[in-house]
């Protein structure tokens, strides 16, 4: 999972001056660093990463140090032209606010239990905890055997009987269209197949061309279709004749065959 990748980001790269003066002093290429930086799923993810890699106590966050490191990351991202979501800047502002509130003298308190409510870090801690809890949830989902990724169920297609209407909804159609487009992307080029000459198509077309007036079979042949077209036309005529939809007439051997709709 990506999380492990994220945790393996070496801290030395991002601490101290070398990080600020890009690219001098960096021992990983900016491209790789960029990948690591864009890997963060937002400011909470970045903060949580900083706390874990520094082995800080989430219940007692050293805000000054964390804010400093956070600012360095943001600076690095800006240098690398990574489009910074507004949320990152909002978090930076929040950290600054917490810092300044910690610097203010505390009003006298007579109740030790109020300690937490006065601590401006509590809300941040709760947000971090909740987010990290859902990261655990995401890891659990990832650990499951998921159909389409780890599992391929077998379902032999059986034609739906006429009395049953299959379930369909628009989301299914949308998803299917996206699948087609996705697959088309991964293919180098489309194989454009020639239109096959279907007997059923030919039968319908022949029916549309004939009337009670006889027409010559030659008139029903389409030159561009070549021999396959001729064969299919002939089979279509035989089929229509068998169904008694047309009448065929030939005056003598090898003469033209005329066709008309059966009366």
């Amino acid at each position, binding site marked *: 999972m990506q999380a492990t990748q994220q945790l393996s980001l070496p801290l030395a790269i991002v601490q101290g001056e070398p990080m600020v003066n890009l690219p001098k002093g960096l021992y990983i290429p900016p491209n790789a660093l960029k990948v690591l930086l864009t890997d963060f799923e937002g400011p909470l993810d970045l903060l949580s990463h900083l706390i874990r890699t520094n082995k800080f106590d989430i219940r007692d966050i050293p805000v000054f140090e964390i804010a400093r490191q956070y600012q360095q990351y943001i600076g690095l991202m800006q240098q690398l032209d990574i489009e910074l979501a507004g949320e990152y800047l909002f978090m930076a502002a929040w950290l600054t606010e917490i810092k300044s509130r910690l610097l203010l003298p505390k009003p006298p308190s007579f109740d030790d239990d109020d300690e937490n409510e006065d601590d401006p870090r509590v809300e941040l801690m709760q947000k971090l905890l909740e987010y990290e809890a859902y990261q655990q949830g995401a890891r659990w989902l990832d650990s499951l055997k998921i159909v389409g990724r780890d599992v391929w169920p077998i379902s032999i297609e*059986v034609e739906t009987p006429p009395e*049953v*209407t299959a379930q369909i909804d*628009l989301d299914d159609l949308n998803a299917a269209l*996206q699948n087609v487009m996705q697959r088309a992307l991964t293919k180098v080029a489309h194989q454009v197949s020639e*239109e096959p000459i279907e007997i059923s198509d030919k039968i319908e077309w022949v029916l*549309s061309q004939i009337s009670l007036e006889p027409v010559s079979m030659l008139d029903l042949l389409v030159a561009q279709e070549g021999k396959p077209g001729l064969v299919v036309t002939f089979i279509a005529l035989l089929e229509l004749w068998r169904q008694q939809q047309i009448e065929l007439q030939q005056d003598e051997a090898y003469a033209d065959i005329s066709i008309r709709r059966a009366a």
Partner: protein
Amino acid sequence: MSEHQQTLYPIVQALIFSSDQALSAQTLFELLQLEYPDIELADVQTALTEIKQSLAGSGLVLAEVGEAVRIQVADDYLDWVYKLYQQTPPKLSRALLETLAIMAHRQPVTRAEIEAIRGVSVSSPIMAQLKQQGWIKALGQKEVPGHPTLWGTTPKLLEDLGLSSKQALVDQLETIVQRFIQEQEQEQSQNRIDLDL
């Protein structure tokens, strides 16, 4: 069974059971060659024969469709599947949904045009099922050699989807296509930035 056959048998079985269309021995052979360069077409045919035999009395059969094979429910047991479908109507297969989606978006459209977009052939059972459900109909014929049938969607499909008009369906699918294209372009320009570094 030779050692070779023991290797091929489960692979071929997994492939023909999971394929949504009939597979030819040649197709299977070409796929298997990627990993096993020294196999022969005859090995694949032997595996298919073995699978066919092993299915005797199992409720399933290996059916031959021209040069290709497909797993089907044996005729004697189709009624049982229908009974099941009456209890829980089946979902539509991926192949069927893709065919219907392209047809709805591009209508009027020929079968070969759909195949060109999907990259795989549209099987006759799929067309039959779409017609049987009353979702598609012939709209006419394309004025090209072969006069292929032009297909489109029916009012029943709109009704089953809960849509008011054919235009609403086409527009909805067009939105999906446009969004997809936009996302691809964004990704590509993103990639270009990566390369500049």
